[in-house]
C-alpha cells in the first residue's frame, strides 16, 4: 500500500509524458478528414484548357482518380510538382487538378513552364468546391475509387517517398477492386 502511494506520482507523470510525446509528434496541420469513405462531393467546373466545357465527378465514375488541389500562387505546390509528374508517368490513376482560386492565365503558364502532370485541370475560381472538399491547406490530394468514394486524403505537399510508400500501393489495390 505504501509503495503504491509513492509510485502514483510516477505513474501520473508517465501517463502525462506519453500524452505529451504523442501530442508533440502529431502534425497540427493534419486534421483528419470526415470525408474519408464518403462519396466525393459533386462538382461541375470549367476545364482549364477548354473553359467552354465542364467536368463533373460523374464523368470519372469507374476510374480510380486523384484530385490534386493546386494553384500557381501556392509555394508548396512547386515543391510537390516534380513528384506529381513522376506519379503521372506510372499511369496508375487519372490525375485531376483542382486549380483552386487561381487565374486561368497564370495557371496555364505554370503548366507550360513546369510540365503538366494532370489528365485534366478544372477551375474552382471562387473556392466553393474547395469548401465542399474541406480544403484548407493547398496542396491537398484526394484518392477516389471506382465507385466515386474518397479513400485517402493527403494534406500538404506530397513528399519524396510518399509515392512509393503511400500512393502506388493504394492505387494498385484500388485498381484491382471492381467498379
Amino acid at each position: 500500500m505504501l509503495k503504491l502511494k509513492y509510485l502514483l506520482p510516477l505513474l501520473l507523470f508517465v501517463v502525462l509524458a506519453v500524452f505529451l510525446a504523442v501530442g508533440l509528434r502529431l502534425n497540427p496541420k493534419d486534421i483528419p478528414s470526415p470525408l474519408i469513405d464518403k462519396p466525393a462531393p459533386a462538382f461541375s467546373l470549367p476545364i482549364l484548357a477548354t473553359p467552354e466545357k465542364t467536368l463533373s465527378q460523374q464523368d470519372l465514375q469507374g476510374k480510380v482518380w486523384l484530385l490534386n488541389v493546386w494553384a500557381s500562387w501556392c509555394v508548396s505546390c512547386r515543391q510537390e510538382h516534380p513528384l506529381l509528374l513522376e506519379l503521372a508517368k506510372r499511369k496508375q490513376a487519372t490525375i485531376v487538378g483542382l486549380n483552386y482560386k487561381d487565374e486561368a492565365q497564370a495557371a496555364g503558364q505554370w503548366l507550360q513552364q513546369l510540365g503538366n502532370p494532370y489528365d485534366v485541370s478544372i477551375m474552382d475560381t471562387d473556392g466553393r468546391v474547395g469548401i465542399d472538399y474541406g480544403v484548407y491547406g493547398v496542396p491537398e490530394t484526394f484518392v477516389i475509387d471506382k465507385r466515386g468514394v474518397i479513400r485517402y486524403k493527403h494534406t500538404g505537399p506530397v513528399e519524396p517517398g510518399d509515392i512509393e510508400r503511400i500512393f502506388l500501393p493504394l492505387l494498385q489495390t484500388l485498381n484491382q477492386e471492381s467498379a
Partner: protein
Amino acid sequence: MKRLIILVLCLLAAPVSAVVEYHPFTDPAKEQAYQTLISELRCLVCQNQTIADSNADLAKDLRRQVYDMLQQGKSQQDVVNFMTQRYGDFVMYRPAFSMKTGLLWLGPIAFLLIGIITVVLLARHKKNAATQTALDGRQKTRLNELLQQGEED
C-alpha cells in the same frame, strides 16, 4: 500637428477596414446568428483564430459561406452541420459532445475531481496522523522532566 495626428489615425485604421468585408443583414436575428457562428468556427489555416478574427482567404470564404447560407434561410445548426461534414469537429471551438470529443469535454472535470479527492484524502490522512502523534499522559510527564533537566543544565 492636428493634421499629423489625423494622418497617423488614418494609417492605423487602414488595415482594420481591410479585415472585415461588408455583409449587410436586414434581419437582426440572422445577423446575431452570423456573429455567433463566425466567432465559434475555427479558421483551419491559422488554427488559433476564429474565422471572425482571421483575415486568411479561407476565413473570408467561410464567412461568405455562412452569410450565404443564413440568407438562404438555413438555420444555425444547418451551418454547423455543413462545416463539420467538411472539416470535422475540429472546425468548432465548442464541438458537439460525442464519443470522439468526450475526453475533451470530460477531461478537465475528471482532473478537477482527481484533484479534489487527493486534497480531501491528504487532509484526512494528516488529521489521523495528528491524533496518532498526540502524547499520552506518561509521555507528557517524561517530556516535561526532560525539558526541566535541560533547563537545569
